[in-house]
């Protein structure tokens, strides 16, 4: 579907509301208060649809100070975040360019979220590993301050080693799943030889112990997948440093489309794609290529300021103005 309207009409708001109702959180902000209309006490989003052929209904409400509450098919969920396990949604917004041109931390965060969607049984690994590194760093500082000894450090070194190895393996698997689809999507959008390169550094107990004194001096764990990066390339060219703004945008879009395909294949149903302001930056051939690349059995909601940016059937056009939506 295509949502059209002038700047400030509320198109991004619409996308955000759909994301909120299907995922339990906003792709833009963690602050619930920002999601409530100015001057009102709360917010409510309800969506209805079908999933694998059965009806699917979500209602999410926000009251500042009370957080979010979600109901799935009438039954209250423990937390609104549980929704994300029900129906995956992938987002493209112009600020997602940071995935390519931003810091390694931005890429790690992005690929770890992809990992959680592609390998749900290991979705807790990135958070658990980060917690282990946090504990080990605290232990290192306590050793440096003579509040503790290296013996008390051992269990944290063991946890970092164990969870770190598992995280590297999971990332390698997730990237091996994504990479071929990424190359296909990138090529179709005119970005040749798209490649994702990941070489994780497994923090073995031996390797961590070999650099123990340095880690104690600096108070941080200087080895492990919390320092990894993922190379996003076209041929041998690293798009992070040598990609044009346009190529970086195509790379992010290719990543989203690649993951959509992988999810569709692994979960037997395509994800919901929310593509904000993607068309304006693409020429006509690429816009047409994009439509061909959307997952066949998923649903896509795009926004554009120009109604003629894409040829869509009448029922598929949403006209947004002054915060109201009507079918065009």
């Amino acid at each position, binding site marked *: 579907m295509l949502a059209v309207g002038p700047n400030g009409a509320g198109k991004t708001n619409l996308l955000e509301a759909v994301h909120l109702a299907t995922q339990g959180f906003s792709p833009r902000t963690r602050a619930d208060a920002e999601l409530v209309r100015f001057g009102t006490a709360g917010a409510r989003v309800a969506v209805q649809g079908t999933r694998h052929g059965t009806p699917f209904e979500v209602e999410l409400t926000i009251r500042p*100070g009370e957080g979010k509450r979600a109901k799935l098919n009438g039954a209250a969920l423990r937390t609104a975040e549980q929704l994300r*396990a029900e129906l995956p949604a992938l987002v493209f917004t112009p600020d997602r360019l940071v995935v390519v041109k931003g810091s390694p931390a931005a890429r790690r965060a992005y690929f770890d979220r992809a990992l959680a969607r592609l390998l*749900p*049984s*290991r*979705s*807790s690994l990135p958070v*658990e590993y980060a*917690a*282990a590194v*946090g*504990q*080990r760093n*605290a*232990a290192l500082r*306590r050793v440096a301050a003579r*509040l*503790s000894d290296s*013996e*008390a450090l*051992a*269990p*944290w070194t*063991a*946890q970092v080693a164990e*969870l770190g190895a598992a995280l590297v393996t999971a990332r390698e698997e997730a990237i091996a799943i994504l990479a071929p689809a990424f190359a296909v999507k990138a090529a179709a959008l005119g970005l040749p030889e798209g490649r994702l390169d990941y070489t994780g550094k497994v923090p073995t107990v031996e390797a961590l112990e070999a650099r123990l004194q340095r880690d104690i001096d600096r108070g941080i764990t200087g080895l492990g997948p919390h320092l990894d990066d993922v190379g996003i390339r076209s041929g041998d060219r690293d798009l992070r440093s040598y990609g044009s703004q346009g190529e970086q945008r195509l790379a992010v879009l290719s990543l989203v489309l690649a993951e959509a395909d992988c999810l569709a294949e692994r979960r037997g149903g395509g994800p919901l794609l929310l593509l904000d302001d993607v068309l304006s930056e693409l020429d006509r051939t690429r816009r047409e290529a994009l439509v061909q690349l959307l997952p066949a059995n998923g649903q896509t909601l795009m926004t554009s300021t120009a109604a003629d940016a894409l040829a869509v059937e009448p029922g598929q056009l949403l006209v947004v103005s002054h915060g109201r939506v009507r079918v065009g």
Partner: protein
Amino acid sequence: MISPSVDNLVAQLTRLPGVGTRTAHRLAFHLLQRSTPEANALADAIREVKERVRFCQVCGNLTEQEVCGICQDPRRDRSVICVVEQPVDVVSVERTAEYRGLYHVLGGSLSPLDGIEPGDLRIGELFQRVQDGGVTEVVLATNPNMTGEATANYIADKLRGRTRVTRLASGLPVGGDLEYADEVTLGRALLGRREM
């Protein structure tokens, strides 16, 4: 500000784990609406546990004596020690009515971020019990989270070669539907599957 004594009560309640200001206010107003004897019964109960209840000298469980009922019970198997984080975990394991050994309550889990070191838990006391002899198995029943695993790791390392050390298996909640199990729990249960 309603009255200094209400403020004080709210402040005291807020210090309890899991109680925010909102809940503290609700509880305070609830107590104010109760009759005086009813409200005093709560105050007396708090005073009484503080006067009478202490930690068992052997296992660290809660007791009104020097040594708790479980440690004193001659029918318990003294060769097995189940290590848990909190006294409430003893209650959980006891409810199974499957376990006939003794316990050791650590008083928490290792967490350098919160300044909790081996010396802040009753780990030395556990090693001493094993040292004293007669223990053939130590069952590590710390929580299945990151700090619980690290604590189990630490203890297992230290006891290696001195006695048999086992860890609780992780699995699925019985009686529930597979449909409602989260992916992480189900994934771990799958890894720990057994031959039939």
